[in-house]
């Protein structure tokens, strides 16, 4: 009997974690104007409303643009940094290692306030560029940690073998190092993308109207008008995240070589 106690407790916790999110799906097909559950009737009208609403579609496009941009920028910064930290000894390493982690230490409200007062004199508040810069810096530590972890487990004998077989440093990097690290880098990239895609607080402060992302628009809709389209967006987002998680599991499950 005692053996089943952890299983039962875990099951209860899992239900607590998942069940509240499941309620969103029937809500998105509900006919109710406000938050009403169980729904008085079902239709797909709010899906139609989402796909014909200029402001929701624009927020969706903004979310994708900003998440893609900050994913790219995050990788450009985090990938070389991971190599620098794992493979080299240099002056100030331990301090800089802490510096790299600062963006995930600072509470999001504090960062958001900082970004607002820093970006507004530069006329970057309410722009895609401002959002991409802000989100990249927030994602750099996460991507850095993920890639560093993979790089630490990398067997450098593979590179030595390639070099001794006559490959130059660049060739070795492109044909040996990168393919082995690819799953880790992809996971880092996915984390950066999803982080930006879900991030609400900084967006609320600095996205303005023109660069408004989905989390910001949802937050404001919930607060002001309780637009039933929120349920539709939530369902679509949860579906997309589920897809992303499955994708990352697929990447992770694949053997490291090949």
């Amino acid at each position, binding site marked *: 009997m005692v053996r089943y106690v952890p299983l039962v407790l*875990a099951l209860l916790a899992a239900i607590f974690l998942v069940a*509240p999110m499941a309620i969103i799906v029937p809500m998105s097909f509900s006919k109710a104007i406000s938050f009403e559950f*169980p729904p008085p009737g079902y239709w797909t009208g709010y899906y139609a409303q989402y796909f014909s609403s200029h402001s929701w579609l624009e927020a969706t496009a903004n979310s994708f643009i900003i998440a893609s941009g900050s994913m790219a920028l995050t990788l450009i910064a985090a990938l*070389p940094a991971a190599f*620098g930290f794992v493979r*080299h000894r240099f002056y100030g390493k331990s301090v800089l290692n802490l510096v790299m982690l600062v963006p995930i230490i600072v*509470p999001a409200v504090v960062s958001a306030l900082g970004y607002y007062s820093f970006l507004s004199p530069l006329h970057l508040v309410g722009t895609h560029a401002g959002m991409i810069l802000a989100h990249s810096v927030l994602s750099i530590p996460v991507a850095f940690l993920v890639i560093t972890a993979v790089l630490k487990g990398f067997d450098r004998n593979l590179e030595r073998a390639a070099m001794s077989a006559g490959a130059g440093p660049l060739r070795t990097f492109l044909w040996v190092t990168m393919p082995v690290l690819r799953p880790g880098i992809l996971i880092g990239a996915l984390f950066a993308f999803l982080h930006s895609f879900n991030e609400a*607080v900084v967006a609320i402060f600095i996205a303005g109207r023109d660069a408004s992302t989905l989390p910001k628009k949802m937050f404001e809709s919930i607060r002001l008008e309780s637009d039933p389209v929120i349920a539709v967006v939530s369902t679509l987002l949860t579906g997309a995240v589920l897809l992303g998680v499955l994708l990352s599991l697929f990447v992770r499950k694949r053997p490291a070589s090949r």
Partner: protein
Amino acid sequence: MPAFRGAGLISRDSLTAWLLVAPAVVCVVVLFIVPIGYVLLLSVTDPTVSLDHYRRFFTVPLYANVMVNTFRTSLIVTLACLALGYPLAYVMARRDDALAVSFWTGFVVRTYAWLIILGNKGPVAATYAFAGWGSPPQLLFTSFSSTLGMTHVLLPYMVLALYGVMRKIDPSYMRAAESLGARPFGAFRLVFLPLSLAGVVNGCVLVFTMCLGFYVTPILLGTPKDMMISQLISQQIEDLLAWGFASAIAVVLLACTLVLLGIYNRFAGLDRLWG
């Protein structure tokens, strides 16, 4: 950059390292640490140069209440997450399969779900009506709903921290304890629990510090009567446009977070917090 002082001291290797690390470090310093410096500056200069905001924050009883409420709520959320997350991570660590399903669903979406559940036309209210208990108590926009929502949103972080440590505990230790006569619970208490404590500490520090400055959920689900720090900041900016005072509160919040993480860093090393 002290590394460049005295050409004899720097090797080519450390120069390469600096070049590799530079883009990220410059990004973080210029685009993050400098903006945080702005907040610090704003808190003592807006509207005039003085420490008045801090004096006000630490002397007015209302703000002391906000601090107490923030720490109390964070503590409750952390303990609730631990109670729910420990068995979940325990079971997952032994099955070695997928997790992180709800980890990446945004805070806003998950908070929205609780708005429906606890709302006055939601399933809880419907159950009350169905059972004939009359109208349910006010659930939404209370510190209860805010605490519940934050527990739900932060639980995955707790599970992930615990899972990271538990996964590395060799199951043969437990079998060894049982073969030597320990009962299942005894084997758990004497062998598994002590080994998993590092994960408990990580998870609690992570959830507690995240909870201190949590923005979305307390604002959407909570009440202005029992404010948390983030609600106070939001109120000062949106209703009163008091950027200076809001910045001072943000600095206090940052200081609390840094002190907690500083203590953690002293004993465990900050790198380990995220597994």
